[in-house]
């Protein structure tokens, strides 16, 4: 008997499409934002700089939809790895924050994002292994 397609597979495929389109929009708006930056009046520079945020909102919505629809073990692995990454990022941020007066330089806010995403990747790998 042929079974219908697995709903978790359908959810993943839909997520890949939504994520792919949103990232394509992000890349397009990054180029647009950078190309019109020099000709933009100073009062419009903040909205122009924030243009790429619009597709990132769609990325966020796609991630939320996927988390709601995903397989329960996948969700557990995701949530545990996010918690570990969030905790590690908070610990590192507070530690560095205390050392900023030491005096260490003030890093870009992108560093927090990079540390969190790296921590998520690493913790996801280890949490996933627990269930294999």
């Amino acid at each position, binding site marked *: 008997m042929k079974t219908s397609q697995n*709903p978790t597979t359908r959810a993943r495929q839909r997520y890949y499409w939504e994520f792919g389109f949103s990232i394509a929009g992000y890349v397009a708006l990054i180029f647009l934002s950078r190309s019109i930056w020099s000709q933009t009046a100073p009062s419009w520079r903040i909205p122009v700089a924030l243009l790429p945020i619009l597709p990132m909102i769609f990325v966020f919505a796609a991630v939320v939809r996927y988390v709601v629809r995903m397989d*329960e073990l996948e969700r557990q692995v995701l949530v545990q790895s996010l918690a570990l990454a969030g905790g590690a990022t908070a610990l590192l941020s507070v530690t560095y924050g205390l050392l900023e007066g030491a005096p260490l330089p003030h890093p870009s806010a992108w560093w927090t994002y990079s540390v969190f995403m790296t921590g998520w990747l690493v913790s996801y790998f280890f949490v996933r292994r627990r269930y294999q």
Partner: protein
Amino acid sequence: MKNRIKVLRAEKDWSQAELADRIGVARQTIVALEAGKYAPSLPLAFKLSRLFQRPIEEIFVDEPSDDIASHETK
């Protein structure tokens, strides 16, 4: 949590992927369940119970924790 999913699946002659499709989870979840490395949610346990037409306690092996055992003897 120990369980008899692998045996029950073999009785039906289903692959892990087929069982995963029937209860709407990823194949990796079946792998983790059969290895006893993942305790399913109650809704998933009931799905398995309906699919195999067995009570939950016939599919999953109860392992009482020390906390409950010591509480019951008080």
